[in-house]
């Protein structure tokens, strides 16, 4: 480990000298955190609704009101005819158009089935599916009320006939209030740690390659091992600074409850951060320009952490092949540990396996990266 201290000093000085990069590295994770926490909510609300009420009766108004009163729909347009409603959907100004035909109240008074048409914009499928369920739900409640009134008027005890067979009693565990911040904010810790540290590491080393200054170091008495360690440590320190800031924000700004043991969690971050910077080193041995390094780092770190860690997209929804694919990236194990600690309050007895895999993964990447690096030097 000859000459590790000078390399460390040089690297820290270089990071310090470019306050711009330093600022971004520290500021950006927080921006990410806030953007996500405040806007990622897939539940539907304020769905812009265009209503064509051709019946215009007390019943049709009661029917439409029921939708608005759920708070899910926002009555934004009252076009005069269905064609105009269609145009509003095409332009994306309305997401749902409902057509109550003339004769709605007449059909109900005659004891027949009145038909209502609803058109839902399907371009965002997740919302469309929820909208469909809400429309069905409101419609069922309305119909049930009609039937109950009818049976009561006959005096046959509609209440008994229409009593529900089953009453759903939901019990939501780990995140009973179903707050999206409670899963998004801790889930982002893994993404943030894997997004910036490897990228900065790779850029720093490839930058020296591009400028040619790496050759000067190799002809100096500094050993390759010292060069690697000296290059990696500053970025690990940076990653831990990011971690500290993010944890503070999670705790004091977003007030996400921590059900488990924080020290156990911090233990898991150590192999994760080492693995992250080692991926950066690996990337630097494959690429020769900073742009290529960035793209490769994105493909190897940020994208899998974001997409295949189970943070936003649950792994059980993926095809088998990609459930398998997700094992190739450390973010999956780390995310499982994060949720175990933050939300479930479980400890090593549940996620020891994940921790071992994480350590093994890190060891493998470190070995591979140093091997490739030494080969290049030698």
């Amino acid at each position: 480990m000859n000459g590790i201290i000078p390399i460390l000093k040089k690297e820290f000085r270089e990071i310090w000298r470019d306050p711009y990069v330093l600022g971004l590295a520290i500021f950006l994770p927080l921006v990410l955190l806030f953007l996500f926490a405040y806007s990622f909510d897939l539940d539907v609300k304020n769905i812009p609704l265009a209503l064509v009420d051709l019946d215009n009766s007390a019943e049709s108004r009661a029917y439409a009101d029921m939708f608005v009163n759920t708070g899910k729909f926002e009555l934004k347009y009252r076009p005069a005819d269905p064609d105009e409603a269609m145009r509003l959907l095409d332009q994306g100004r309305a997401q749902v158009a409902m057509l109550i035909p003339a004769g709605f109240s007449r059909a109900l008074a005659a004891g027949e089935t009145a038909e209502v048409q609803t058109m839902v914009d399907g371009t965002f499928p997740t919302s469309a599916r929820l909208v469909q369920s809400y429309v069905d739900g409101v419609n069922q409640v309305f119909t049930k009320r009609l039937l109950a009134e009818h049976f009561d008027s006959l005096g046959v005890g509609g209440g008994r006939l229409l009593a529900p067979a089953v009453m759903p009693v939901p019990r939501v565990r780990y995140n009973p209030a179903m707050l999206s911040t409670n899963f998004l904010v801790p889930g982002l810790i893994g993404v943030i740690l894997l997004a910036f540290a490897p990228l900065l590491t790779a850029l720093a080393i490839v930058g020296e390659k591009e400028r040619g200054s790496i050759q000067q170091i190799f002809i100096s008495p500094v050993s390759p091992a010292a060069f690697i360690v000296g290059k990696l440590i500053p970025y690990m320190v940076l990653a831990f600074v990011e971690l500290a800031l993010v944890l503070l924000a999670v705790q004091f700004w977003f007030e996400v409850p921590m059900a488990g043991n924080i020290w156990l969690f911090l233990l898991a971050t150590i192999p994760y951060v080492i693995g992250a910077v080692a991926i950066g080193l690996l990337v630097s041995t494959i690429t020769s320009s900073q742009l290529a390094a960035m793209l490769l780092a994105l493909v190897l770190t940020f994208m899998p952490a974001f997409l295949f860690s189970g943070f936003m997209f649950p792994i059980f929804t993926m095809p088998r092949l990609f459930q398998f694919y997700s094992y190739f990236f450390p973010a999956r194990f780390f995310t499982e540990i994060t949720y175990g600690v933050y939300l479930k309050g479980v400890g090593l007895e549940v996620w020891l396996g994940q921790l071992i895999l994480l350590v093994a993964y890190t060891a493998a990447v470190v070995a591979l990266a140093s091997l490739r690096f030494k080969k290049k030097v030698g």
Partner: protein
Amino acid sequence: MNRRLAGLMRKEFIQFFRDKVLVILILYTFVEIAICGWALTLEVRNMPTAVYDGDRSAESRALIESFARLDSFTLVERVQDPAEIDRLMDAGKVQFGLVIPADFSRNLKAGTPTDVQLLLDGSNSSIAGQAMVDANGLLMDYNGQVALERVERSGQAGHGFLPQVKNLVRILYMPQLKYVHFIMLTMLAITVLLLGVLVPAAGIVREKQAGTFEQLMITPITGPELIAAKIIPMILVKLAGLTIGVVMSMWIFGVPLRGSLLLFYGISVLMFLSSSGIGVLMGTYAQNMQQTLLMAFFLLFPLAFLSGTMVPISNMPPFLRWLTYLSPLRYYVEATLGVFLKGVGLEVLWPQVLALAIFGLVLLGISTLRFRKSLT
């Protein structure tokens, strides 16, 4: 096109293709879209489910089966003790649990309601919410059916007087609600933005660091020509990548093309111009490559986020909703979904096209000005 410009463009092409890893990576980013399309969904499906059936009757089995038939749930465990579901959930083996008590079929015959417990892993609240909506919907349908049977048996239906409302829901544009179509198109749009900004920014900074701009400035080449020569070859390469993405989306994933492909390419060129404008502008500010790339990262993420690709814009708080108007990607995504899924043309999409054109002109204008100033 004059000869100077042609010569410069040839140089750009040669320079661009020299970095093989980069070219492969650019093409690969469009392949990555296919991976996403294949693997990712924000919808609940195949949620591992554990069931406790305390009743063990034909009725309870039928109810469990109707759960298993939904795409949302996959039955993985039948437990003998309701508490076992909690343990399975702690270990992450199941995300959903259904508890049917012992008196279910007896209550059903007596006409009294039974409490059926739904256990949910709420960690991912959006998935849990969808699962809850699905489970409640199923139980509601079940109740409706039971009530209808009771009414029929009671003889009240004989009067032929049953006021009901039937709401026929029709899903437009994507009747099968294939998430894959949505994600393919939006990832394509994000990739267009990503490469559209990154590649020109990196190109400019590289030349700045190498000091070759000064050499170019003493030739008769003008600033706008230089920028055009930088941007046009890149746009051609990116259009090739875009074509790979479009072909994959349509042939492998069956994304329908209901509008005009020509219009889509036209809009894509506008989008490339806007994003190149952002890229060149960044290139004039940044002092080195590291700064450029970090700045790109810093800008791209919010731009992508504020476009309605990950979260519907109507779900955002008002402040962020307002900010989405500043993201060119918002207009591009709307136009892409419009052309492919809705099959609408310029008569509907003109505001988006206009917005992209304005973004492109303003950004390229400012960046050319800044570029000239930064050299003299």
